[in-house]
């Protein structure tokens, strides 16, 4: 179970789907569909809808986030988009603009 690491210098424009963990430190535009955890590092920029088991946002995400488990918006993270998850944490210092649906 290796992780997919998209480092700071890499830009991906398109649809990314994976069964493993995905760590985004670069730029991702399009769609992100992952069966495992997704981590957006502090330098990461994601302009895509994210579907994953769990999402940890430390960077910049513009798009809707749907997680089957949990969403964590870390300090320094920025999310503009709706969140649909069973569990959600928003750390002090994070920026969030969107709707939250934790029911269902």
């Amino acid at each position, binding site marked *: 179970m*290796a*992780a*997919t*690491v*998209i*480092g*700071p*210098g*890499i*830009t*991906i*424009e*398109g*649809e*990314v*789907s*994976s*069964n*493993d963990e*995905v760590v985004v*430190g*670069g*730029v991702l535009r*399009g769609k992100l569909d992952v069966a495992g955890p997704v981590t957006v590092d502090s330098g990461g920029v994601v302009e895509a809808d994210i579907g994953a088991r769990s999402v940890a946002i430390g960077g910049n995400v513009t798009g809707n986030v749907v997680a089957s488990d949990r969403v964590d918006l870390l300090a320094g993270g920025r999310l503009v988009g709706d969140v649909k998850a069973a569990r959600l944490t928003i750390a002090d210092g994070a920026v969030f603009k969107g709707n939250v649906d934790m029911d269902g």
Partner: protein
Amino acid sequence: MSSPNIISASTTIIGRISGEGDLELHGHVEGEVSVSGSIAIATGATVKGSVEAAAISVAGAVAGNLSGQEAVVLESGARVVGDLAAPSIGIRPGALLRGHVETGNAPPVPNRAAAARPAMTRAAEPRRVAAPVAAPVAAKPAPAVRASTTRKSAPEPVVPKASGRARKTGASASTSDKRRKPPAPVVPALKKRTKKASKRNAR
């Protein structure tokens, strides 16, 4: 440039990958990959699209052109349908390739050029492979030569070297057809005509 970017085996990317750094591909990519560092396409990885990098190492399947600023190496088990272009190209035994191979670009990095020399000299012997002759082809820039039409022009700079064999027959640096056909009948005919023509003119 030091961050290792990895696309794991269960990942599929439909789109373009670009940027700085090295990339390790174990998954499936449908689209162009263009990276400033080195790309390693591992066994089991597939790429449908062109790949551009400083150095490319292929052990998986690629349907698209490979263009390396420094080197392109096909490991055993690689399956490539597409053109290769790099100053130094290595094709290990067991690699499958269908496409056009072009060397002769920027000055090669010494280590990789030494490793690729056996492949280059081996490929230079059969007449069909026009590419690996570095000196005459270096005049043509690699991007311009990638077009399929330039396949016809590529043999032309190579023939001046091959016409060294044809010096006996006196054939000038023209197409390889003259090497196959005996040029002897043509030359005596010309000589006869010129002699007769000079005699006629003298009269």
